């Protein structure tokens, strides 16, 4: 081991770059970008005045009998109580229709609609959005709960009339339930809380999460609402951005949700996300990369390229890097990998601390011990999962058959 350390310490910059090219190309810039944007760019100013318009919350859920009430009660507890709450039970097979009828009678919500057949989240949300009367439509998931000021804070960026939509900050509620959930706690802090704050400073927020997002009604209607899912939230955000609207992130509009607690569930979820991202970015909206397209915009090219390099290419390059490493250095390769991982760990710690400092109300210290595992888990394991998802989508077009969307919709959507 000391020999390995001696070897590494004896390297000059050029040879180190040759040794760790993967890290230098695919990891370092991301960290640097996060640091640079968050630390050096000023936070966008927001209007502190209460939002004057009418606010409707729409919730479409399938068989969410157990969670819907807590979600609605959290909305009723808001410092800025929504003017209207519309709930759609999308072909639920549990007691959700009865539950929402009861809440309607108790005047906890303003409208409750139940369908017998499942139509999917997009159709349900679209219908709710059309039935509600607010100037702002806040889309929420049944299993979410909200901080008291979440609604007030998510409305603030909308004071700018060019802002079409605002993404709320989503944090895991169940980080202490399992190791996998704890890793996701760190991931959400870094990639959603910190990552989107950085992206917000340069106008690069690209996905208004379906779990908690606010939309200006006219923009939502102009875009035609959600298209048949999945990844309908990313799709709508891209369409809004391509129409020239601004999209923002509200770090202090906090919403909590349960993340997968077991590895298979997490892997299935990420397969779905990554497949949808690839399908939407490189099939449906492929012309964002085409400078000759009538609708080409540089701002869209930036996030397309960012995703292509740091998500797609990084995943594809990793196996090549490993093979190259083992072929070139043989038994010395694990030591090099370990050294790389140690380096990344230092960066991860630094980024985590930055994320903790900009994420209110998250118990960051309790998660510190998990950073070691997180670093390996996300640097290696999840990258392979991502790669598998991309290949799966590219070769088998699996996003066209996943169960998030009803089969009847898969059959016809574009």
């Amino acid at each position, binding site marked *: 081991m000391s020999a390995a350390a001696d070897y590494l310490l004896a390297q000059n910059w050029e040879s180190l770059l040759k040794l760790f090219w993967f890290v230098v190309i695919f990891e370092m810039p991301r960290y640097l970008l996060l640091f640079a944007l968050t630390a050096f760019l000023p936070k966008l100013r927001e209007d502190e005045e209460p939002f004057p318009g009418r606010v409707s919350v729409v919730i479409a859920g399938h068989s969410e009998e157990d969670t819907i009430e807590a979600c609605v009660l959290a909305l009723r507890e808001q410092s800025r109580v929504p003017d209207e709450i519309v709930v759609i039970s999308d072909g639920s097979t549990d007691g959700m229709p009865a539950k929402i009828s009861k809440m309607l009678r108790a005047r906890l919500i303003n409208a409750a609609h139940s*369908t017998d057949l499942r139509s999917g989240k997009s*159709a349900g949300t679209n219908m709710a959005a059309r039935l509600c009367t607010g100037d702002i439509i806040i889309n929420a998931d049944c299993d979410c709960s909200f901080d008291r000021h979440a609604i007030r804070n998510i409305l603030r960026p909308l004071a700018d009339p060019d802002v079409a939509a605002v993404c709320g900050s989503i944090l895991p509620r169940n980080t202490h339930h399992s190791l996998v959930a704890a890793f996701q706690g760190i991931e959400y802090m870094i990639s959603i809380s910190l990552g989107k704050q950085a992206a917000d400073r340069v106008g690069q927020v690209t996905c208004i999460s379906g779990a908690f997002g606010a939309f200006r009604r006219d923009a939502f209607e102009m875009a035609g609402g959600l298209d048949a899912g999945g990844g309908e939230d990313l799709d709508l955000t891209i369409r809004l951005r391509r129409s020239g609207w601004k999209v923002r992130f509200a770090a202090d509009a906090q919403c909590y949700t349960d993340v997968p607690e077991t590895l298979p569930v997490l892997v299935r979820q990420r397969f779905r996300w990554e497949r949808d991202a690839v399908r939407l970015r490189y099939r449906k909206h492929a012309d964002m990369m085409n400078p000759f397209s009538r609708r080409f915009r540089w701002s869209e090219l930036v996030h397309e390229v960012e995703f292509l390099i740091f998500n797609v290419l990084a995943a594809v390059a990793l196996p090549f890097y490993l093979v190259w490493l083992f072929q070139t250095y043989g038994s010395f390769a694990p030591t090099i990998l370990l050294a790389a991982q140690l380096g990344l760990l230092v960066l991860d710690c630094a980024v985590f601390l930055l994320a903790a400092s900009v994420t209110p109300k998250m118990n960051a210290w309790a998660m510190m011990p998990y950073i070691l595992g997180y670093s390996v888990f996300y640097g290696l394991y999840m990258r392979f999962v991502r790669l598998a998802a991309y290949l799966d989508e590219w070769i088998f077009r699996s996003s066209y058959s996943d169960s998030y969307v009803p089969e009847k919709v898969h059959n016809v959507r574009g």
Partner: protein
Amino acid sequence: MNSISPKINAVASPRRVLLVEDSSVTQDIVELMLTQAGHTVSIASDGAMALRLLAKDEFDVVLTDFHLPDITGLDVVTQYLETHPQGPRPAFVAITGDVRGLLADRANCEVFDRIVPKPLDIDLLCELVEAPVVPVVPTVRVKAVPGTAGNAIEALPLAYFRWPASRNQDVTPRLMGVDAILVESCEALDVLWRQPGVNTLPVIDMTGRLGTSADVDGTALRLGDTDRILALVELFHDRRAELHTDFLRSNEPTDRLLARLHVANTPLTPRLDGTASSLFAWNLVASSDEIGLAVSKLVAEGFLETAFHERVHHCPACQSARLIVREECSACGSAHLNEESYLHHFRCSYQGPETDFRHGDELTCPKCRRTLAHFGRDYDRPGLMVRCQACAAITSEPSVAFRCVDCATRTPADAAPTRDILSAKITEQGFSYLETGLAFLGATRQSLRFADLPLELIISLNKAASRFNEDKTPFVLGYIAHDNLLELRRKHGARQTEDARDLWIETFRQAIGPTTTVTKGASQDFFLTLDMQKLMLGPNLEVARGRADKSVRLDLGARFQLFGPEDITG
């Protein structure tokens, strides 16, 4: 100044009363009571004297005993009418111990305006004297058509009272000796119910519309039904005889209901009735509002026990249960709602009512303008929605509200109050109450009732009242109620309890001193203290009670209620 004089002045129309009565005790009581009430009383002790007084003076009311030493009360009236065929005449009230016998003679019914049974109910007598005088119209008996049900009932050897009454007067005396009530019109049955005595008589329905509210449907008689009627009348007579006299002409709705249930020997049973605003009628002719209130009071007393029968919503404004149930728009309240399918266009995720899609006979998606050609492939119908035709609001579950048929008040379903319709039957305690009379309730719940007093006490009271009228010498009439009497009877037997009570009275009599007369009554005992104010008596009473209580082993639970001259004349 005590309260006698103002009360005398307060009598609306003082009457001139002629009392024809040979018993000096009855003379004393009646005179005392009527004089105290502000009327003028002349007394004749036989028929000849009565006729003399009638020839000499004018009277508003003649109270005559039927059996007089010389002639009958009937003779007095017929002779008077022979000599005075024209002009105004007094109202003739017969007092008799044999009401049925008196009514058996048609002539009696035609000359007497009212008939009062013996023993005399002083309260009733006062009511009769003060009631407006109405000229007599002879009762017209409806001729029965041969072969009809009515005929079969008419042919029975029973005395009927017909409703509606043929004369606009108090029906009370005429119910004496009546066996059953023939209802020939369903109008104003609540008025019928409120007549004293009606609650203890069987009701025969001659309209065919009363259902179980009547005891017999007289319009649909079958073979053997006449026997059934006779048996029923007999049952009512028998069970009426079991009632304490307090209940025979009580005006208290609760007592009347309890008495009726006992006499009819049936539980209180509700049935659906669209004509009643409560939607329920009962197996008696009272209105359901009256019943509901009385039942809850009786249940609170422990005299009735109830069982759930039905729950109805009612209007919070007018209490009517006649409500229209309507599904209505939760936004505007209109009931003009249409049900419509949702259509879900798979390709673009538009989901909305069918009218959004329909253009002629084509279905076109309003979002993407594609034509929906194939059910199940392009689109489906995931459910139903309700669209308000008045305000175009859409809901999947219209709200439910009630509209009152009687007062048009609109009430949301969850805000409409409910009322439980209960059946009820008399409890053991209720039966005890019916047997014991008002004494069961204890003295505090009672008002002063002269009918309860033993005769010797009435005479003493009369004298005391006369003295009070002359020189304002005060007196105190006391009721002694024994709260534990019933329980002791059950525990120790009637004899032992009565012995204890006798001993108690005796000790009390000795302890209270010679100025007080102590008299034993039926369910209560009494005392009369002369030359004493009500307030001054208290300490003496307590001492006497203490000694009396000590003299007996059983705790009788004696309690006093005191009345002064001012209470008695009220």
